[in-house]
């Protein structure tokens, strides 16, 4: 991976918004994610269990928000070379995400700072579903490794 494909710390500024990112959640995405995190919760993986649940369907694991948050970070065609180490993260899981939900994620740069010679960027990320209902709100601080 070449550096020009990465977002530089210098090019980001407070208030900056990334291009809004659209994502459709599918059963296949949910199964693949659940397998990757070795979580065989039947509410994520078994259609019959989903049908018999309060939700009436399988749902996406709350932390699968990572999928559309990461895609939203890449909506400008570059990736942030950030790691989460030495940083704080906050997630509010407001509504479950169902297969077929069409999600829109907005990433805003809230702040950037240098502490102990390390570069940090603080992002606010908000995702809504096709009914414009909030699904997940998060605040993610990344430590720039480059």
């Amino acid at each position, binding site marked *: 991976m070449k550096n020009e494909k990465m977002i530089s710390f210098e090019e980001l500024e407070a208030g900056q918004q990334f291009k809004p990112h659209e994502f459709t959640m599918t059963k296949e995405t949910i199964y693949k994610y659940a397998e990757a995190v070795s979580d065989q919760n039947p509410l994520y993986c078994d259609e019959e269990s989903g049908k018999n649940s309060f939700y009436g369907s399988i749902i996406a694991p709350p932390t699968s928000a990572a*999928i559309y948050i990461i895609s939203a970070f890449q909506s400008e065609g570059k990736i942030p070379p950030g790691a989460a180490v030495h940083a704080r993260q906050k997630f509010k899981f407001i509504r479950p995400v169902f297969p077929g939900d069409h999600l829109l994620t907005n990433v805003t740069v809230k702040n950037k700072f240098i502490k102990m010679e390390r570069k940090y960027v603080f992002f606010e990320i908000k995702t809504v579903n096709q009914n414009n209902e909030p699904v997940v709100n998060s605040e993610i601080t990344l430590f720039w490794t480059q």
Partner: protein
Amino acid sequence: MNSKRPNLKKFAEIELGMELPEVIKQVTQEIINKYALASGDMNPQHVDPEFAGQTVFKGTIAHGLLTIAYISEMMANFFKDGWYSGSDMEISFHAPVRPGDTITASGRVKTKKASGDRGIITCKVACTNQDNANIITGTATALAEL
């Protein structure tokens, strides 16, 4: 959602200081690669040993959001439908997870309060590695049935 009632833990059965059953996971480079594919985060810091060897981490590290998924699994196992919506978590990363690490997600009930027709339970949560070093610490809040 349908007419079924949510499967919630009973507020009265949750005691302060109660420990949640731990979730233990072995993290390998194969798991990191699988998570990269499932989440779409192909940052070379996670999947390219040559690139990662030249960064401050001197090697590949797991995605922060993979470790968070283990906390989420623990919360869902205990709180069931009280975790999938109306919940939140706030955590700090202290150290990276490297291939070969064994991660234990643990939690303990810190506060409980009634709000409207639901109980709100906040737990202290953490992930530690095989050397008992803190990887992440923080809080996670779920709902319970009053």
